């Protein structure tokens, strides 16, 4: 059993970790609850800031983890501590023993229906960021009009919002909104595009350039004010209310499409796993690392490691970097056994 590693979660964190572990000479087992690998990234169209294809990333990673055992559509039913590792019972009936576990369960996208005032599921022309990504790839969504005159993006839907029970910043939505605004502008150059934000948090490399591009080259309008209500006019257009806080006036605008930037919330299935494995959760509901500066990938249990958004919202490069360092940490840990 020594050297047996189970990775829970087959998103980019799990795949990247598997890839690194393969290169270190291990043959990890990847357990993925959905039917395909790639997680949220697999359903994204392009990644910021370089606009590279998300699908290419996922398929490249898939080809690189041929040395791993991949179990899709499989869940962990129970988890027991052994003297020198863990024993996992899987939903396919098998029992796997592992010296080390990597938790890479990622996140859940906030259910925009919970922000009833934004009218997702009520009005026809309100979609979420993930709906829009799906439309970019497949072009099939009756809610997206053929020639929208004006499109709005609402930042921070279900993040930084106590009322949505998520106080944390989702980190990626600001850049995603700008990316999607640019993509909309590329498809509908004559549409007016508005981004409604509380604070713009463009901290990553080249994100600021991205922001400048959107302003200068694409004419995206940034309004500092959180949308508070969405209504519908008699002719079926959306009417939104916000405050233009910079001019200090209430603002209303009619839109043909409203995109809600659903935030990152803790994976809804993480509760069971953390209970089974005795893992601590943090005040924000995500898994708690040993510390949040130096040991983000380490858990309170020996032999269990974290990678990616299971410990909090992460960007793609952060997730990939964590996956690699977790692979290395697992390697060092197994050497000490």
């Amino acid at each position, binding site marked *: 059993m020594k050297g047996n590693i189970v990775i829970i979660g087959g998103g980019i964190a799990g795949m990247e970790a598997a890839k690194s572990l393969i290169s270190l000479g291990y043959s990890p087992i990847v357990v993925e609850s959905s039917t395909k690998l790639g997680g949220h990234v697999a359903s994204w169209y392009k990644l910021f800031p370089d606009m590279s294809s998300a699908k290419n990333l996922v398929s490249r990673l898939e080809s690189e983890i041929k040395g791993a055992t991949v179990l899709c559509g499989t869940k962990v039913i129970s988890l027991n501590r052994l003297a020198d590792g863990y024993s996992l019972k899987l939903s396919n009936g098998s029992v796997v023993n592992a010296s080390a576990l990597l938790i890479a369960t990622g996140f859940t996208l906030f259910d925009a229906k919970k922000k009833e005032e934004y009218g997702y599921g*009520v*009005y026809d022309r309100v979609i979420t960021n993930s709906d829009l990504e799906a439309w970019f790839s497949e072009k099939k969504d009756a809610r997206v009009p053929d020639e929208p005159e004006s499109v709005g993006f609402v930042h921070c839907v279900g993040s930084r919002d106590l009322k949505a029970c998520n106080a944390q910043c989702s980190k990626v939505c600001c850049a995603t909104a700008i990316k999607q605004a640019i993509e909309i502008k590329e498809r509908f150059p004559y549409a007016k595009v508005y981004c409604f934000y509380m604070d713009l948090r463009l901290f990553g490399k080249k994100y600021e350039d991205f922001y400048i591009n959107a302003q200068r080259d694409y004419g995206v309008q940034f309004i500092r004010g959180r949308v508070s209500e969405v209504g519908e006019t008699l002719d079926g257009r959306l009417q939104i209310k916000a405050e233009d806080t910079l001019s200090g006036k209430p603002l209303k605008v009619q839109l043909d499409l409203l995109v809600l930037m659903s935030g990152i919330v803790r994976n809804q299935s993480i509760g069971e796993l953390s209970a089974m494995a005795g893992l601590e959760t943090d005040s924000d509901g995500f898994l708690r690392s040993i510390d949040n500066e130096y040991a983000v990938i380490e858990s309170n249990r020996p032999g269990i490691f974290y990678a990616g958004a299971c410990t909090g919202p992460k960007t793609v490069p952060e997730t990939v970097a964590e996956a690699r360092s977790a692979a290395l940490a697992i390697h060092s840990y197994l050497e000490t056994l």
Partner: protein
Amino acid sequence: MAERFEIGFHPFVIPFLAGMVFVLGVCFIKAVIVVSQLDEGDRKKWFRSLIHPNILIKNLVDIILDCLIHVRLWKRNKVLGFMHSSIAFGWFMIILLGHLQVLIYFPEKLSTCYYPIFFDYFIEGGQYTVISKIMDGFLLLILAGIALAVVKRFWSRLFGMRRTTRPTLYNLIGLYSLWAIFPLRFLAEQCVRSGDLSVPLWWAYSIALCTFMTVLPFGRYLHIPAEMLLITFRNAGVGITQPHKGMARVQADSCPNCGVCIDACPMNADPANLKDSTVYLTRQLRRRNQERIREISDKCLLCGKCTSVCQVGVDGPKLRILSRAAKKYRISPDFSNAGAGITVPSAENKVLYFSGCMTSLTPKIGRSVESVLKKAGIDYEWMDRDGGLCCGRPLYTAGRLKEAAELAARNEKQILESGVRVLLVSCPICYREFRERYNLPGIRVVHYADYFCELMEQGLLRFEKSDTCYVFHDPCELGRGCGIYESPRRLISKAAAIAEAPKNRKESVCCGGSLGSLSLDFSRREKITAASLENLYRSRADAIATACPLCFATFARYSDRPVKDLAQIIDEQTKQI
């Protein structure tokens, strides 16, 4: 025996007499003060009611049923009901029969007033009449009640009460002296012929009576005389108009500190709020502790559950609203221009739909109401589709009564000008305000639950029943506030399956989102909501239905199963005819 009978006096009656004079004097003065504090009109109403035969009979019946037999308590808790009525009714009967006995056998002694109380001593237990046998029976009944009271004092959970009030010193003295009176009387009567012990026991009996009567005006036992006054006030139609005077004072004094409201109060899902139930408000009102009165008043959700379970009918929300109204603010609103930019559509012969402020944050409700109206072919106008004025209830519950009335007047004017005959409301908060505090002559104000029920009966809605099982949460303002319990249930059972939560209707648990509370902030409401949801989950329904935008938004935030507004359910399960 002859000697005792001849003299007809013993020094041990003095404590009893002193206590009696004291308690009657204090209660009389208190009653005079309270009556003088009433508004001029209310006072006249009260005096007139005292000579009105019908009200007089009602007063008597209510006093017997409520104060002596405790009918309301019986309905709620049989053991507690027995305990209270055995003591109150038993004691009353002993006093009554004791006087009757003296009246029949020694009418000349009746004027001494203590004679019936110490009767057995003076006649040395000589004559066993039928009356004295009945009295012994009542005394045993009281002793059984006292025994229950002792058990309840130390193991209140046996009586189904999770929490009771912590008694004050006066209340403890009153309680123990009350417990002592009857066993002492019993022993004194038993020992009346055995010499030595007899006189000390009669002394102890008299002192216990004196103690009880002396502390009565300062503790919870003031509720005994106060409740009688409260009943006459209520039957005369006297209302609470001042924060701590008149009717408010009588209500505070009538609170028996039983603590039923503590377990009922939804806020007590969080132990931090344990000391803010109505029983503590009345206690602080008696003590005139302004700081605590303010704190308790501001925190309350005004759900009204304490009033619905209260044995004497203390109106907790109203007492609090008036306490809030006592606060002086340095900035006062000015609504002279309010509503100037709003145009209300002319709606003659149509239904005018008023959705209210909150519904614009829960667009599903407004759209569903609209869609059902369309399906039923009702001609309607939506008064505040693009925003309107607040109904004024939030101002009213915050204690800004004058401002609320000003706002109401603005709305009244607009509604009357529209020429409408039926005003349809979807928010129970607005609905209650329209019903209770608006003057809209010739206009029928109706909540959609009632209105859709009528449409259903008229055959204007065609239902298709779904398999989903809903549990209906009675919103405070719709249920306890306006008494609408049946219509929502009839509609749901037509549209889907329905289950009931253990605590429902009058005892429904506030969702915690209420606008009634001024000081409870968001983070301190979560536990209240969790407790309310827990009650609904126990019904094992698949989904939760409610009929209030605030309940809807609050539940949707934390619920692990779908939450729908009643209008939405009706809309989903009806077809165009």
